[in-house]
């Protein structure tokens, strides 16, 4: 067990390291540099050279990376070249938002998807199954940002139930916090519902066709019992993998919703930083996102082994 965790941690370090190198290289490959944002049209060669030296960007790529890495290991992620806000500060602003949105949206999606899938698997191609299928596909066909626009129009502007933009931190009270988080969470949950529903349904149907289920039924166990106790567990593999992916894509794919609702999350800040060539911000965010992603999926993998002990712990 300890070996397993240690192995996984080692993997985490290696993966995150590789990602940090990739992020560093890629963002430096982008044409231009922060002097564009800082100096604007006054980007004369002398001013640029002076600024580059000031920012430490005239050193070799290897040197720059090494400096960054050693700083990171000392807990210093650097600061924005443009606003001088520390990267740690920016990340600390973003993370609570994304965590809350991910938790809320995935909970919403699961609460809808799991019961739907259970009922649908009972009677494959029955009426409920068809409706649930169509409904989930309909949710898929609408892009998140369209959903966000419509949700804001109806629930914020027309009904005044929730704010239209912004994120109220927990420190300002649970009520305001939830109110500001509910619309973006719903918008983000829509895409996840279909993933969970479809994957779980497929697996449930397949599992229900297996003989051990037939055997359980022949022993007189009710369908509901069978579903919940015996079929759900082995069918959850794909669900879990789907959760890993769904959450992962939410870590960076939320830009449009965050932009429209002015949520200072990872997606929004990352895209801003890339556009401004704010290298340290980009690297810092890529690092944090990577750590989160890998941790979440390690948890997923671990739960997979719990669910089915026959899965070898690679």
């Amino acid at each position: 067990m300890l070996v397993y965790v240690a192995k996984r941690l080692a993997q985490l370090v290696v993966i995150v390291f590789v990602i940090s190198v990739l992020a560093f290289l890629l963002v430096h490959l982008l044409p231009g540099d922060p002097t564009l944002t800082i100096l604007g049209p006054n980007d004369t060669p002398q001013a640029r050279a002076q600024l580059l030296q000031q920012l430490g960007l005239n050193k070799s790529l290897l040197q720059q990376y090494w400096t960054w890495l050693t700083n990171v290991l000392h807990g210093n992620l650097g600061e924005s070249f443009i606003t001088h806000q520390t990267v740690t500060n920016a990340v600390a602003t973003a993370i609570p938002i994304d965590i809350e949105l991910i938790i809320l949206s995935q909970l919403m999606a699961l609460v809808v998807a799991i019961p739907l899938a259970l009922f649908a698997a009972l009677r494959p191609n029955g009426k409920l199954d068809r409706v649930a299928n169509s409904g989930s596909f309909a949710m898929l066909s609408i892009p998140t940002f369209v959903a966000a626009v419509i949700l804001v129009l109806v629930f914020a502007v027309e009904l005044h139930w929730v704010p239209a933009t912004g994120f109220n931190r927990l420190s300002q009270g649970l009520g305001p916090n939830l109110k500001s988080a509910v619309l973006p969470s719903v918008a983000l949950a829509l895409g996840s519902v279909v993933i969970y529903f479809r994957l779980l349904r497929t697996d449930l149907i397949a599992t229900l066709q297996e003989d051990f289920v037939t055997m359980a039924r022949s022993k007189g166990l009710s369908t509901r019992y069978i579903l919940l106790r015996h079929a759900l567990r082995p069918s959850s593999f794909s669900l879990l993998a789907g959760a890993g992916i769904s959450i992962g894509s939410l870590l960076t794919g939320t830009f449009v919703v965050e932009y429209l609702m002015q949520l200072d999350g990872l997606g929004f800040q990352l895209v801003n930083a890339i556009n401004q060539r704010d290298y340290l911000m980009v690297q810092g965010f890529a690092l944090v996102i990577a750590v989160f992603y890998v941790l979440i999926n390690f948890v997923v993998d671990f739960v997979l082994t719990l669910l089915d002990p026959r899965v070898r712990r690679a």
Partner: protein
Amino acid sequence: MPEGHPVPVLPPIERASVAAPGAELIAEPAESRAKRRTKYGVLFWVCVGIVGAMILLAVLASVLPIQSPTSLDYQAVNSGPSLHHLLGTDDLGRDLLSRIIYGSRVSLIIGFGSVGIGLLFGGSAGMLAAFRGRGTDGVLNALSFVLLAFPPILAIMVIEAFWGKTLLKLTLLFALVATPQLFRVVRANTLSFANREFITAARSMGATTNRILFKELLPNVLPSAVSFALIGVAIAIVVEGSLAFLGLSISLPTASLGNIINEGAQLYNLQANPYPVLFPSLYIFLLIVSLNLIGDRLRASYDTREAKL
């Protein structure tokens, strides 16, 4: 079985052409199964027709008697369906029907192309990794993490800065994002089968890796993989709209379903004329429902749970 103890998961036993006792509770009797092999049902053919029509329209777009997707009709901006414009116009006065047909070209290629490549490379890698386990799995899994945990937006921006944004390149970019995802899903799925007794049995009988992969694992893994891949097609088509939002998608004024929706989703456009958002979404919806039904019917009639030895 005592309550509270999990039922041991037994492997699916070999199914001969005669169904095992009790299986008729869920599986169909052999006779009607055979009958169904020749008749998928009306709905199936309707869906085949729909998908076929979509593909045909996309392929034949330039020879169809439809209006140009880029010519602007200033008198008919944001108008609903009419005789002159069957599906209405967008906010630049361009014929929506024509833009959707041309746009479907771009979206279908991106959607199917990226997921197809993803299934091919990611799916097979996933199966291999789960089956082999140990080293292979460790390396491939870690590699997939690197690709997945890396913010795709950064990669897309950099690659497009150097490479441009033609249809082919966009498809490859999407494939780059889809491959590790399909790898993870197929791997997870395969893991649930790879350790079952029928595989061990096959192995002990001297079956080669290839044989086990293709004859035993693949048929069991494929339904779930295809199911997920299908969703992936729709997701790819829709996500392309988000890229269009950032200006990172296909160059204007080339249409794609995603950028039609994107332009139409501006609040004042949406309120004036919801059709540029509605019709492409409907198209995507029809596509995925049809494909799903086709896939379901195909799968149901070719019962793939047999272990072939």
